């Protein structure tokens, strides 16, 4: 006789069927994408343009300078909330969202997800963390961060955007990828963040970064994001190491050229310290080093007629010089594999006398080396040949852009976040605490007047000398460039042949 207390075959099948149905239902689910027109109408209702100057910048006068110095200890703190700087910024409404924002769809949002290059934490990205905490404080919307390195982020973003995934709701976009993503229709329009007169408080690079007229799904120029961070490259010198080799560190102040760099290389030969270094291991970082050395010659990639030329004499000279420096031992042989973090580690371990790297290097190095005697920021050198040698570095911005495939509510929340990122509060902390560039002019004025930042003069000069060139499919061009350049550095092909290969790709894919 069957036991009525045990599951029989029919019951198992019934339960399995219910479970399967539930699983299928869970897998299905609308992506919740917001219609373009619906979003644009809703964005207008946020009233971001109303009184934006006062909301974003004007209230800065109410933020006491002395309170701004009460920042958290990077080594020991994990949050800004207990710091005097944060508390006074909150109390004085240094940033506030526009009135009535919570009557829009953004008011229904409890949290949003942002994909962040690096990590929004005290160790690597404290100013972004400060922005997140302020945003949550003022709006009640939590920010969940997906942390990922920039090389991986670029490919990950292309994957989820090409699949039209609605999440993450906002994400950092490397500057060289912005035009490509715009062209592919992945980014939401953010025009409401830039009302009439909206660019006036900011440096010109901002408009160049966010404004494009290459999205076939939309007429006319539009903006596609807001600044996340911007880095300017500058020289980082170890005066003590240089002096040990008989070179006067003062020669790196003011005007200097590649000749001095090569003199440095000769001086360190036979020692266990490297003179300088560059990146040639990944496409993203090769792009940094290549452009720096190109700009230092006064060269450029974009011609007046819009054509992209990579195998110009200046472009070929970059590779030739990279090879020469590697063959002579001025740079580590491993530069051919250097990517994110490699030069930082080498410099931090005391094995490097000079390098060009981004400004966010500075706070970390100031924790390890004494300013002035052991560590000095200098303007990068000028080339000794080229169209118009000039002391130049690179401006490498990235945006936070809004996922076009997200729902309206989350997109509006991301617009509010953009308003905060454009505010004095965020731009101040990016520059004074984290060492990134500020997109807001007033930050430089205020920090200089109040002697707020170590090496302020050098940093300011380096930022002014920083150059920016962006064109569609730039990331693809540098990805295609990596292998020929690495072969050229090893002597398996000539620099000219390597750059000619790159130019063939550019002519096929970009210039046609």
């Amino acid at each position, binding site marked *: 006789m069957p036991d009525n207390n045990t599951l029989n075959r*029919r019951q198992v*099948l019934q339960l399995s069927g219910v479970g399967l149905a539930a699983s299928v239902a869970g897998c299905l689910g609308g992506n919740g994408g917001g219609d373009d027109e619906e979003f644009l109408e809703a964005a207008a209702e946020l009233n971001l343009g109303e009184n934006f100057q006062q909301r974003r910048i004007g209230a800065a006068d109410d933020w006491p300078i002395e309170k701004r110095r009460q920042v958290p200890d990077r080594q020991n703190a994990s949050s800004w909330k207990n710091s005097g700087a944060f508390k006074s910024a909150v109390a004085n409404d240094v940033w506030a969202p526009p009135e009535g924002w919570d009557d829009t769809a953004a008011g229904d949002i409890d949290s949003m997800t942002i994909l962040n290059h690096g990590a929004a934490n005290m160790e690597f990205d404290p100013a972004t963390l400060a922005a997140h905490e302020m945003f949550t404080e003022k709006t009640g919307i939590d920010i969940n961060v997906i942390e990922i390195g920039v090389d991986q982020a670029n*490919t990950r973003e292309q994957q989820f955007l090409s699949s039209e995934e609605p999440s993450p709701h906002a994400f950092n976009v490397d500057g060289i990828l912005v035009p490509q993503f715009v062209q592919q229709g992945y980014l939401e329009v953010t025009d409401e963040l830039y009302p009439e007169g909206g660019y006036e408080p900011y440096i010109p690079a901002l408009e160049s970064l966010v404004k494009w007229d290459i999205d076939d799904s939309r007429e006319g120029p539009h903006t596609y994001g807001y600044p996340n961070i911007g880095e300017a490259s500058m020289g980082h010198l170890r005066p003590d190491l240089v002096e040990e080799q008989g070179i006067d560190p003062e020669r790196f102040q003011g005007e200097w050229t590649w000749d001095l760099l090569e003199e440095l290389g000769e001086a360190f030969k036979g020692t266990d310290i490297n003179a300088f270094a560059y990146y040639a*291991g990944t496409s993203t970082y090769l792009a940094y080093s290549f452009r720096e050395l190109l700009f230092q010659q006064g060269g450029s990639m974009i011609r007046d007629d819009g054509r992209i030329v990579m195998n110009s004499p200046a472009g070929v000279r970059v590779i030739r010089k990279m090879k020469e420096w590697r063959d002579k031992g001025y740079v580590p042989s491993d530069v051919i*594999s250097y990517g994110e973090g490699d030069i930082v580690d080498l410099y931090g371990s005391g094995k490097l006398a000079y390098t060009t790297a981004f400004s966010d290097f500075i706070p970390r190095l100031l924790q390890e080396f004494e300013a002035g005697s052991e560590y000095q920021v200098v303007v990068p050198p000028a080339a000794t040949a080229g169209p118009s040698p000039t002391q130049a570095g690179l401006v490498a911005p990235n945006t936070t852009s809004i996922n076009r495939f997200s729902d309206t509510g989350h997109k509006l929340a991301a617009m509010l976040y953009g308003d905060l990122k454009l505010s004095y509060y965020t731009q101040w902390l990016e520059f004074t605490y984290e060492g990134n560039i500020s997109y807001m002019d007033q930050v430089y004025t205020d920090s200089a007047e109040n002697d707020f930042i170590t090496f302020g003069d050098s940093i300011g000069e380096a930022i002014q000398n920083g150059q920016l060139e962006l064109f569609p499919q730039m990331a693809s061009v540098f*990805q295609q460039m990596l292998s020929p350049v690495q072969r050229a550095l090893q002597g398996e092909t000539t620099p000219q042949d390597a750059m000619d290969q790159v130019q063939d790709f550019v002519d096929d*894919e970009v210039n046609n």
Partner: protein
Amino acid sequence: MSAEEFNGNPHGDGLAGQLSDWVNDHIRTVLLGPSLVALLVVFIYPAVMLLWLSLQNTRGLGETFEPGYNYGRIFTDPTFWNAVEKTLIYSFGSLFLSVGAGLIIALALNKVMDTRVRNIYSTLILISWAVPLSIVGVTWRWMFNGQLGIVNKVLIDLGILNSSYSWLGNSLSAMVVVILADAWSRIPFAAVVLLAGLQSIPQEMYDAAKIDGATSFQTFWNVTLPYLRPSFFVAGLITWMFAFRAFAIPFSTTGGGPGGATETLAIYIHRFGIQLLDYGFASAVSVFLVAVTLLVAAGYVYFILEQMEEIEL
């Protein structure tokens, strides 16, 4: 319960009863169905999509149906054949090293009489198998770092090197490093398979060889190796198949560089499919990769079966 109740449908003759009858009559379909659906979703559909995408021209921003375009590009792209060459060097290098080292470890473990001690050693060896491949790659990258790596430090301290050597900055040494890293991660699998094979060899064969006055080498060559052939084939085939499709280790160690020196087919596919978004071409190369793997596996299995028949005879 009456006989009628026992033999009749407890759900009655209504819809429930009919459904119940249908399920009873098609029980195999009902039980296998979900598994087949899963197979369809996880394997068959992606395979069909892969074939379909390989027929699309996805260069630039669009997608157009051009059946021969991508496959034609395969045979004219010099970097593709470079990737094939590097993949063959990588996979066979890893195969020989991992199976060779696995054999040595298996022979050593087989000599350990105490079962508990042998199991402890086996577990320790398996630790390297448990480490994720990307972690293996990153670790080996750091070990062979030209400036800060421990390998250079040890070699300089031992007097073997006078100064730091750029292991990952040179095409030849970079390939050696990734092969070593891959072989290291696959040795445990080979060792376990070969150990199982060793333990299945009848002791009488060794006794007979001893009686015949065979030396250790002769015993190994004429008794151990022939009996180990099936294990060799299994360990070799599976090791080679995984190495042929390797991505995690070369990608996290060298990224395929320098200059394509360690760019395996998987990294090549990644470059086109993920970085350059030319997923049509990447799909065509993937089809090629799968086809080669299947062909080699089929031929290998056929060869093994023939060999095993000989042994049985």
